């Protein structure tokens, strides 16, 4: 802009105003047609291919995953200690009660499996609840990255706990192979985790936890009071396990994508806002 102005200045300097007028007269003689819309569009379309693409985040999946892992390391210390502790206590308590009351350990597994993840979601959305979202989004590691890495931590922690509980119960369920036990809790786990994620994006933390736990308690009570329901889960054919697990995982991935999309731009977060 500045450059062009300079040019015109020089141009003006070079010519006398009389000459100017003459040229203007001459130019008025000609009629320059304005190109029609169609032509303009066509030109733009032709040029478009030379415009460089917007730089994508980081194309390689592996790279992104590594970044996520690294980030999780940082987030680890930011998740409240009481969360880790209470989850562990809950599982120990579950183990003891099952042993004490001689309940079916598989039911205990099914019932306990998703709970740490549920409470973990509170930690995941902690920034949102406390009104930090807008600030988090503006930071180098944006809100959705923080959420994803926390979710990764919570998920890994949850699965570790479940696996340990499974190993703890092994002596009592010798008849079933370890793979089957893993499947028994993992299948409902995936479905419920996906459902929980969906709910947690719709509702604020407290409301979400209450809603989910209500449903969860009802479900658990049904499993316990209707042996048939429990047996249905326990005796499901392995193919169905994989089918349901597949559905669960797909649902989960869809929810994750939505989460990333939702927390990428602030405008879409409007419905969860902090009171003033």
């Amino acid at each position, binding site marked *: 802009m500045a450059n062009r102005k300079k040019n015109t200045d020089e141009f003006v300097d070079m010519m006398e105003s009389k000459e100017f007028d003459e040229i203007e007269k001459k130019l008025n003689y000609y009629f320059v047609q304005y190109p029609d819309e169609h032509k303009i569009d066509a030109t733009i379309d032709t040029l478009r291919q030379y415009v460089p693409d917007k730089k994508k985040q980081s194309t390689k999946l592996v790279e992104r995953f590594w970044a996520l892992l690294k980030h999780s390391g940082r987030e680890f210390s930011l998740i409240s200690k009481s969360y880790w502790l209470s989850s562990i206590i809950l599982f120990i308590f579950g183990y003891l*009660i099952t042993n*004490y*009351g001689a309940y079916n350990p598989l039911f205990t597994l099914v019932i306990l499996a998703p709970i740490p993840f549920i409470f973990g979601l509170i930690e995941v959305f902690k920034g949102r609840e406390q009104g930090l979202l807008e600030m988090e989004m503006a930071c180098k590691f944006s809100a959705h990255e923080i959420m994803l890495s926390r979710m990764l931590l919570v998920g890994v922690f949850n699965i570790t706990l479940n696996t340990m509980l499974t190993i703890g119960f092994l002596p009592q369920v010798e008849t079933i192979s370890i793979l089957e036990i893993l499947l028994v809790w993992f299948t409902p786990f995936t479905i419920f985790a996906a459902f929980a994620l969906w*709910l947690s994006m*719709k*509702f604020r*933390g*407290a*409301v*979400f*936890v*209450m*809603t989910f*736990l*209500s*449903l969860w*308690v*009802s479900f658990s*009570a*049904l499993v316990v*009071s*209707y*042996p*048939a329901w429990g*047996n249905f889960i326990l005796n499901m054919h392995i193919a169905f396990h994989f089918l349901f697990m597949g559905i669960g995982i797909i649902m989960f991935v869809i929810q994750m994508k939505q989460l990333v999309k939702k927390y990428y731009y602030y405008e879409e977060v409007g419905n969860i806002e902090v*009171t003033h």
Partner: protein
Amino acid sequence: MYRHELFKVFTRKNIYIVFFLVVLTMVYIDKNYISQTETMEEDEYVELFEERGAPVTTMKNGVYEKLFDEWGGPVTEDKISLATEKMQKIDEKLVEGTPSLTPEEKAAHNVHFIVANAGQHEISLQERKESLQSKIDDVDDQSYAYKEAEKELSMLEQLDDTHGFYLIRAWRGMFDLIEPFMSVILLSTLILLGLTPVFAEEHSQRTLGLILATKHGKGKLVTAKIMASLTYIGVVFSSLHLVNFFLHWLSYGGLQGWNAPIQSLPISTSFNTLYELSPFAWDVWQYYAITLSIQFLACVALAFLVLLISMLVKNVMFAFFISGAVIGAPFMFRILSLDQGIFKYINSFSYLEFMKVDNLFQEFIAYNVFGYPVLYPLILLFIFVILTALIVFFTYNRFRQQQVNE
């Protein structure tokens, strides 16, 4: 004010999600666990039995009406011996390996079984009466044991021929949502979800300061909130029970049996709540009314507790957990076999038992109150009326004293 409080309660989306899923579960269970066994083939029946335990017979088939004409009403000696005879015949037939039973035969077999069973119940009732009589004769007539036995006996004497075959169709499942324990869970879940935010949310939304500084913000507001909460409970309670009512009505095809005595209530349901020694001389419809009223009162009592906790705790989620713990504690105690001494009383006089209702009337239970036997349900009601009155008073009182300081 009331209208706006109602608006606050009813605009929480999560209660609709939960309510919807609860109804869905009820429909699912209804469709899957109530089956028309009378039209099934023998092997289907056996399969069903193995899969789910004793299936529920709907007695929807018209053949039962004919059978009712023949066998219905209180049992008599003749009916019992005839039924036993017929059962033996069919058993022999089955042993011989004759082709499987026709639906009519199977239905008849069912009814014979019920009649024979009723006979057994009649006998155990007589035995109970005799043992009470002998107790009365044995113990000192000033002692508590004497009074207790006398009371039970006099109640049992009030029953006239209560055992027999009655065509109780839809009624057997109407008392509970799915089953007694589940009704507690479903109802209390919805109560907790709807009511824990009532006071706590004024805190978390930081509207408490505004409210408390208004003329009615410390007194009438509490009344409005309580009224709105009770309306919510009324709506939840009645709609769930209406759904339940119609589900059963439709699956069993009729409301017959409303005037049968409760002692003949559910036999061969998958939940064996048996009333054969219940000392209450009520018809089924009376019992239905009583059960629902008591359950509703229990919901109301629970609501007041939840509201108080919601006000004291000031955090929706903590209020939810604490209320949940209060309801669930007796269940946990029993799992941990803590049902002796003081725990026995805690477990019996809990919100859980109050809402569950079914344990109150299945048999004669009385407690020693200053040397007099008082029926368990009466004491329970009395205790909860007093407790709730205290809670209400405390709620008003504490709310008035509330300060905004942080």
